[in-house]
């Protein structure tokens, strides 16, 4: 019986520090990677501006949220930002569609090689970066409100009588729920609707799709709008869960790319799996298992050291090590890429 409680404690400990944060972070990465992968599948280039697109969408949402908060509009225990989100998505969609018309379309028409697209997206990244900092400034911004926790660590301890607590933040719950809903919606859209089918056909074989009368401009437009929506939602959820800072969003680009490639770029399923793989490997490899093992092992075997595989300094490097390993063993990712 005592041992059973120890096991439960160990599991709660693990959930609290690895499972729950990993799930939330993984969902955020997955949403970001979905956007990258979608653009890759249809437009065939790795969009370096994605992180800053996320920042732009989040910025618009924040500005509106602040205004809503100042006039006293709210959503009860849910964050106000959810009301502002659609506007953020719309603004971001306008931005990316405008960017496409002003920048990318030209290269598409000339059938430029992917590397040129990537380079162009770097230029767009720089500009978006500048615009965001210009409007909202470089500071750390917070805009979350409403109830902070679904489950509080202290309450959990009191209710269950366990010595370990479990905390779930509202934003973490929200992130996972919205991520699941979005993924389901996206799959339904790609599999069942006419436009979705057209997109998959276009991604599969551009020439064949064009021959069968698919309007490429429309496909591209829809892709950008969906990518903008995914980017904004990922960015807002991330900002609600942590905080908004333009510099952070630029840095998010790296794990997002890692997630997209590990899963198999161009593959929506891959993006989701990749997001969780990256998030969980970051957390599990750098987690110190000392306390966890103390609960599980008999006293004679209790570890002295921290039982940590890699120091947390290498957290960011972990996702890239996985990336490199995947590229070595299976260059197309877990789910062979380039298909929607």
């Amino acid at each position, binding site marked *: 019986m005592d041992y059973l409680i120890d096991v439960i404690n160990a599991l709660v*400990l693990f959930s*609290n*520090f*690895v499972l729950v*944060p*990993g799930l939330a*972070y993984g969902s*955020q990465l997955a949403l970001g990677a979905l956007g990258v992968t979608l653009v890759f599948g249809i437009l065939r280039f790795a969009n370096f501006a994605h992180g800053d697109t996320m920042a732009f969408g989040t910025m618009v949402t924040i500005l509106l949220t602040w205004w809503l908060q100042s006039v006293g509009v709210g959503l009860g225990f849910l964050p106000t930002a959810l009301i502002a989100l659609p506007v953020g998505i719309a603004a971001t969609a306008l931005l990316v569609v405008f960017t496409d018309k002003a920048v990318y379309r030209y290269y598409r028409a000339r059938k430029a090689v992917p590397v040129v697209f990537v380079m162009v997206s770097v230029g767009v990244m720089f500009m978006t970066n500048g615009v965001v900092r210009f409007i909202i*400034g*470089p*500071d*750390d911004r*917070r805009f979350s409100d409403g109830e*902070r*926790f679904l489950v509080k*660590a*202290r309450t959990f*301890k009191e209710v269950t009588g366990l010595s370990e*607590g479990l*905390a779930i*933040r509202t934003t973490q719950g929200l992130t996972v729920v919205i991520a699941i809903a979005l993924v389901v919606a996206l799959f339904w859209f790609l599999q069942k609707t006419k436009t979705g089918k057209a997109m998959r056909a276009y991604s599969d074989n551009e020439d064949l799709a064009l021959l069968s009368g698919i309007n490429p401009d429309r496909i591209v437009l829809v892709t950008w709008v969906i990518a903008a929506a995914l980017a904004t939602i990922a960015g807002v959820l*991330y900002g609600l869960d*942590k*905080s908004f*800072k333009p*510099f*952070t969003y630029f*840095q*998010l680009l790296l*794990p997002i790319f890692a997630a997209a490639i590990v899963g198999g770029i161009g593959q929506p399923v891959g993006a989701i799996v990749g997001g969780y793989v990256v*998030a969980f490997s*970051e*957390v599990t490899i*750098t*987690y*110190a*298992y*000392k*306390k*966890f093992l103390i609960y599980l092992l008999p006293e004679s075997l209790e570890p002295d050291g*921290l039982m*940590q595989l890699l*120091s*947390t*300094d290498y*957290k*960011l490097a972990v996702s890239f090590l996985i990336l490199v390993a995947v590229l070595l063993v299976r260059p197309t990712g877990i789910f062979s890429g380039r298909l929607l």
Partner: protein
Amino acid sequence: MKKLLLASTMLAAMTATAFADGHEVKVGVILGFTGPIESLTPGMGDGAELAFKEASDSGKLLDGKVIVPVRADSTCIDAAAATAAAERLVTAEGVAAIMGADCSGVTTAIANNVGVPNGVVMISPSATSPALTTIEDNGFFFRTAPSDARQGEVLADVVMERGVNNVAITYTNNDYGKGLSESFSNAFKAKGGSVTMTAAHEDGKADYSAEVGALAASGADDLVVFGYVDQGGLGIVQTSLDTGAFDRFIFADGMIGQSIVDNVGDGLVGSFGTAPGGESDGAKMFAELAKGKVTGDGTGPFDGHSYDAGALIVLAMQAAGSADRAAIQSKIMEVANAPGEKILPGEIAKGLEILAGGGDIDYVGATAVEFNEVGEVFGSYRELEVMEGEFKTMKVR
């Protein structure tokens, strides 16, 4: 053209300072307005400029001279760009002195490559690396933020005295965090304490649950955080409280600021830490002064230090009776240290007046400035504890 050039070079050579129309003195403000600490620097720049404005508005500075601050971007990390920016300030703008730079790395580069070679005083408000103590500065480099080496020891004393002898440490992965972490853990271990784990955190990263998870697993009761109030440090504290990993935190100066109490709320009650400062009400007076005039109302960790750095420059100028670079350097120590009339934030005009009358002042400012022989503050520390929604000073040591 050539003649004009010759004449202007001569003028610059003669006066060492370019007086645009005779009553302006340029002073450089070089901080990382872009880059990793871009969210801290607006307040710092404003803080220094507040001191300049106070001096200019008083009309007493060198018989009515006006300080014109010239900002430049140190980027915090790019030594090459920072050196170029400083070079511009010194040789093109002809500044009389420099308030800056901020991060220890670029500060060292600017001091070695521009400040010292050109004989320009630099007062850094935030470079805290112990390595700066021993640079060959010819007496031209000062800092109003204390070296990490000292603070680590003081904090170790505080922690010990409170009966805590088992801690985990997390530090922001730069020279400030690392240096402080090492000096603290050495001092703490020497006093018999034990550090269960030391983990770095990167500022501006996505997520800190891995760090907090590992720190919590180490089995320590309290978490020592060496970071910045609005950066990774905040993320660590927030995540720790949310997951119930730690209930009490121990902070150094970078983490002391009203914003963290406001952001985190009740969870911080009982957490404590140290920050440089004396018995005086300097910090409070600066807070009053900065309200509405400094970005973030002067609550940033280095805003007060910046104000002090700026004030020292103008006061030294007044004491020297000229805006000459070498003359300013020769007077900094005098105005900063005892003996003399104590000068607090908002009293720069008073200080200028005393100096004009040939008197002596001891600038105290927002952070209780007192320089040792190598031009570093070595003064007292306040022991602070969070109660009733703010950091309260418990003791001065």
